[in-house]
């Protein structure tokens, strides 16, 4: 038997049999289908568009297309003063505004080299950790909804509502706070704030357990996420993944520990990393698990901060804010641990202007999403949804 030729990627085979008969075999004709997923699709978390080449339900290739929510953050930054950039950073990662502000402010403060009052540091950490919980709640909730479970989503939003109320109380806004300012915060915490946050912590603990039982332990959920979209640790580092994504791959890397800022060195908390018992290290379930466990760590941090926060009557949180923010010439790359990973700002100042020459935001989602193409290869369409959900993108941050 001798093969004479093939055509159209092996679907037609021409062979010569031993008795000199020539046979032409033809497979069932199949074609790849191009499926445009998004920008309006329920599970692309905003306006991400994935151009999927599919073979039936199997994704041959999924190419992300971004930019539908591009709002020229970096261009804007070159036109406005340093303090006026803060509300724009809110609008990047709108689910974790406090963390974005914190990252930006500590970057500029590095450039300015100013000392922040201790109480302000604690207020910043409390608010940003509250915001981290809120952000993880949305991540978990929307992940549940991606996988078809509606109820955990609403439970998450119910609890997030309390955080939103707390943050509105302290900052005046529910999502886009403009609360953490360069050199301070906008307002001092209200008198009862500590008490209410402590109440929230006691309220939230059992709810988190309930959520864990309802969603994370559910066998269908585990089956949908375990072993899907596995990212080995070295590849994850090469893709510069950060935050829960990198920790999901088993790398114990948390900027709050590894590149400490604010008062984090004083606080006692764990960096949860999956151990491979409940999930396969690096899969969607690990990433989900890291988020679920991180909420508990955030609660711990908040409790410690409430204990340690110095009480000061008539405290002025704006005391050390410079009148005119004009950093000396130089450049800085500052970063903080966002709920979604490392949020970095590269800021260049020329020393003359009150506006940055360059302000690049290294957004965690943008970097994490870059691995989408490699992660989705050969997966089923429902798994693609699970993978996108586990990356936990906020398109505001991806497109900036």
């Amino acid at each position: 038997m001798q093969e004479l030729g093939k055509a159209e990627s092996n679907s037609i085979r021409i062979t010569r049999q031993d008795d000199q008969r020539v046979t032409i075999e033809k497979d069932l004709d199949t074609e790849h289908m191009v499926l445009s997923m998004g920008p309006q699709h329920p599970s692309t978390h905003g306006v991400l568009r994935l151009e999927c080449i599919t073979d039936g339900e199997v994704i041959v290739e999924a190419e992300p297309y971004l930019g539908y929510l591009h709002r020229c953050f970096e261009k804007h930054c070159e036109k406005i003063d340093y303090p006026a950039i803060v509300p724009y950073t809110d609008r990047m990662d709108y689910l974790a505004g406090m963390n974005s502000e914190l990252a930006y402010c500590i970057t500029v403060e590095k450039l300015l080299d100013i000392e922040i009052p201790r109480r302000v540091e604690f207020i910043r950490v409390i608010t940003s950790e509250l915001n981290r919980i809120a952000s993880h709640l949305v991540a978990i909730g929307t992940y549940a909804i991606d996988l078809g479970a509606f109820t955990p989503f609403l439970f998450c939003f119910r609890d997030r509502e309390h955080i939103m109320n707390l943050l509105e109380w302290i900052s005046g806004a529910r999502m886009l706070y403009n609360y953490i300012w360069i050199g301070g915060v906008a307002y001092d915490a209200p008198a009862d704030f500590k008490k209410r946050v402590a109440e929230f912590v006691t309220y939230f603990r059992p709810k988190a357990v309930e959520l864990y039982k309802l969603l994370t332990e559910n066998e269908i959920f585990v089956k949908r996420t375990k072993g899907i979209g596995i990212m080995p640790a070295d590849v994850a580092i090469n893709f510069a993944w950060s935050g829960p994504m990198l920790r999901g791959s088993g790398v114990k890397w948390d900027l709050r520990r590894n590149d400490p800022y604010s008062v984090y060195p004083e606080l006692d908390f764990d960096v949860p990393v999956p151990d491979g018992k409940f999930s396969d290290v690096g899969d969607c379930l690990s990433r989900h698990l890291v988020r679920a466990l991180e909420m508990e760590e955030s609660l711990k941090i908040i409790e410690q901060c409430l204990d340690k926060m110095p009480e000061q009557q008539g405290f002025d949180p704006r005391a050390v804010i410079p009148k005119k923010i004009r950093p000396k010439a130089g450049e800085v790359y500052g970063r903080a641990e966002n709920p979604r990973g490392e949020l970095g700002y590269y800021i260049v100042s020329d020393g003359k202007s009150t506006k940055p020459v360059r302000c690049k935001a290294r957004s965690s989602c943008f970097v994490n999403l870059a691995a989408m193409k490699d992660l989705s290869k050969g997966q089923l369409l429902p798994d693609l949804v699970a993978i996108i959900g586990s990356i936990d993108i906020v398109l505001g941050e991806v497109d900036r």
Partner: protein
Amino acid sequence: MSEYFSNIKTSATTIATGMAITLKHFFNAVKRKGDAGIDDADYFRQVDGLCTLQYPREAVPTPPHGRYRLYCHIDDCIGCRQCERACPVECITIDTIKATNDDLAACGKTSGGQQKRMWVPVFDIDIAKCMTCGICVSVCPTECLYHTPVADFSEFDVKNMLYHFGNLSKIEAEAKRKKLAEQQVQAAKEKAAAGDAPAAKPAPKPKPAAPPQE
């Protein structure tokens, strides 16, 4: 084979756990969280039960410095334009006319007792552009800009989102401008005539300040 059965078992138990949780919530639906504001002492009193509110009738009260609609109390505005410069989205438009010395009394004082030196014929806030960041509020020296707890201010016409706060009508503004120009011309003449003598002008007639437009 044992894995097969253990799988079925874990599925059954975890599904049963989940269903128990949802059923508990179903029976808790007789309770309601209520509309306690975050600054109420018993905010976390009712943690189970329904948590949504029927909005127009029930609403969560807004906290003290909640940032909702930007409002300018023009009587206190000294026309320093700091808010206009600070606004990142350029939603504030201000036009000022320097008050002539004889008009200072008519121009009035702020509630803090500061003498106002500017007429503010145009103080427009494009509330459709405003992103309620509150930077303008923080830079305002007389605290005449603040946020009111009005959350619902949608309009059918986007033009209605342009709020006018100026304290002079167009005609009045024109008169003031003319007057200022005349005086400046006169002052320049005097200056040319008498070196740097301070410009002291006679007062023609004071004009009442127009009521602030809402």
